[in-house]
């Protein structure tokens, strides 16, 4: 450790502050990160807003993506910022509605991969032995299969299948469009988080606080969830803010390949449409989708980096 690092660390982490409050204090100082955070929040809030309007069936101009607002293929103007599509619908509204699809997919994919990855990783790292071997075998197998092939395979196979939730009193649920996409992404992408958690748990398991907890007779579950998890939690957060981007982009590619949402606008579908429009000189639909994806990806990337820098000093990159 060089003198300089020591100085920086000393300067940044006065005693008595927790990892979190210190991290957030640092994060708040980064303007770019805060702007990015604001963008991410805006996307999220907008998604929530669309859900609420749909739930209560309210109509707002901005969420009426299928309304005809002008002629076909109108170029961008002050009225329609991103012009209109082949049915005279506002491209801007379509792009905005696409937020919902993307965020929903990324959100559920994240939840699914967390729900699978974290407990498996923790169990493997904590119990080791046979449990570990099985779990490692499982994720090594999955990670040996090229990722994109695996997602495609899952999406293909899940499409049009029905899941029976009769036992839970929910009836059967047919997998269509967006559900297929996030299931496919979620079921294939837990490997990374599982590996990360397993490694961290192995590292922390030998630490004194865990030994201490063990010595006064805590149950394994309590040790894992009360003692170990809080110490690796920041890694999960960091990993996820960066993974969210790849989920969004995966959704775009799947939609593009015809495996995604089709009855509602999504960015992948918009790009697919634009593929044919572009040679005709109708560049706006392409641009709108690209800008929408670019903004959220950029914001998440910057925010994720900043989060990592702030919460995990070891990974700090100047």
């Amino acid at each position: 450790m060089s003198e300089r690092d020591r100085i920086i660390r000393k300067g940044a982490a006065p005693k008595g502050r927790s990892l979190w409050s210190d991290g957030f204090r640092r994060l708040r100082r980064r303007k770019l990160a805060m702007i990015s955070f604001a963008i991410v929040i805006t996307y999220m809030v907008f998604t929530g807003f669309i859900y609420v309007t749909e739930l209560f069936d309210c109509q707002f101009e901005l969420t009426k993506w299928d309304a005809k607002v002008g002629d076909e293929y109108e170029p961008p103007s002050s009225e329609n910022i991103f012009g209109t599509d082949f049915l005279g619908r506002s491209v801007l509204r379509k792009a905005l509605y696409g937020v919902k699809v993307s965020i929903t997919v990324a959100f559920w994919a994240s939840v699914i991969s967390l729900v699978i990855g974290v407990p498996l990783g923790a169990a493997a790292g904590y119990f080791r032995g046979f449990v570990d071997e099985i779990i490692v075998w499982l994720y090594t197998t999955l990670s040996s299969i090229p990722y994109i092939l695996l997602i495609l395979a899952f999406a293909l196979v899940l499409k049009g299948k029905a899941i029976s939730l009769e036992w839970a009193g929910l009836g059967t649920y047919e997998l269509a469009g967006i559900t297929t996409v996030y299931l496919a992404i979620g079921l294939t992408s837990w490997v990374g988080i599982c590996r990360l958690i397993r490694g961290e748990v192995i590292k922390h398991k030998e630490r004194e606080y865990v030994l201490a907890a063990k010595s006064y007779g805590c149950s394994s579950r309590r040790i894992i969830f009360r003692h170990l998890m809080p110490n690796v939690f920041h890694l999960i957060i960091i990993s996820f803010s960066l993974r969210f981007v790849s989920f969004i982009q995966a959704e775009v590619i799947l939609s593009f390949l015809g495996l995604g949402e089709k009855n509602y606008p999504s960015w992948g579908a918009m790009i697919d449409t634009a593929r044919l429009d572009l040679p005709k000189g109708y560049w706006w639909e392409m641009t709108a989708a690209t800008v929408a994806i670019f903004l959220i990806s950029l914001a998440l990337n910057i925010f994720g980096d900043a989060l990592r820098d702030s919460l995990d000093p070891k990974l700090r990159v100047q």
Partner: protein
Amino acid sequence: MSNNGTLLTVKNLSTYFFTEEGIARAVQDVSLCIKKGKTFALVGESGCGKSVTALSIMRLVPSPPGEIVGGEIVFGNRNLLELSEKRMRGIRGNKIAIIFQEPMTSLNPVYTVGNQIVEAIRLHQRKSTSAAWTDVVEMLRKVGIADPQQRVSEYPHQMSGGMRQRVMIAMAISCRPELLIADEPTTALDVTIQAQILDLLDELQEREGMSILLITHDLGIVAERADDIAVMYASRIVEVADAKQLFAEPLHPYTQGLLKSLPRLGISAKRLQTISGVVPEPLHFPTGCKFHPRCPIGHDDKRCQSVEPKLREVQLGRCVACWYARGYEK
């Protein structure tokens, strides 16, 4: 101060780090003077700026964020700070060499130790590869490594910490430098090995006639070895003296505190004294004298709290930065 017998003079050196959190003034207004063939010790608690001073002399301050903002370093009539990077490279490792604190990580793990020393020799001396290799074996023998023929082709991870520090020393002296900077050379080592390494340095100094700038936080090891001592506190030198005088009669309250915290043979104190409080951070230095919050004398003094004392010569060859230092009022 006469130039006669002086090898290196540092005048008013200031090195700052420009970080996101603000400017860290790691070294401020440091002046020192190293005599030929002598050992100069720079003492202070960790984080006080000793290592940065050493790196500044080598012009190895990591930049950004570090930057030498002022002062001069005169080495053989040349100001090192004004040399081109290329000329400076000719001096580094050749005229001035440095040993770092962490022998475990300071060697490149993927090259053999021989390879790394040969690199230094071939860089500065026109020697054939085979001649350089002979030199390396010679150097390793000099630093007391047994079986050097074998050891040259070993990798750092195959050696112990002490051995690695010896290799570092061998590398440093391989070009017979005029000044060897030893930056806490023994901190990371076992106590028994510490002494061996320090003795080795003494021995080499005698044999090669080089000057040593010994940087340490441990006043204890300095006592028998150093000719001159400078005490650093929070980026500034607070006291300079020759070794005997300093130990006999420390003038700065900080030096006094340091000495009191040393265990001494023959004096049976119930417990060692410590200096209360903590070392201030470079980003949050107190106003006035930086030592005043911990100072037994001046912590209530208005002047100490508001105005920083300059390093002043209070007796012949003795400089102190303290309002209360004896002789100042004289």
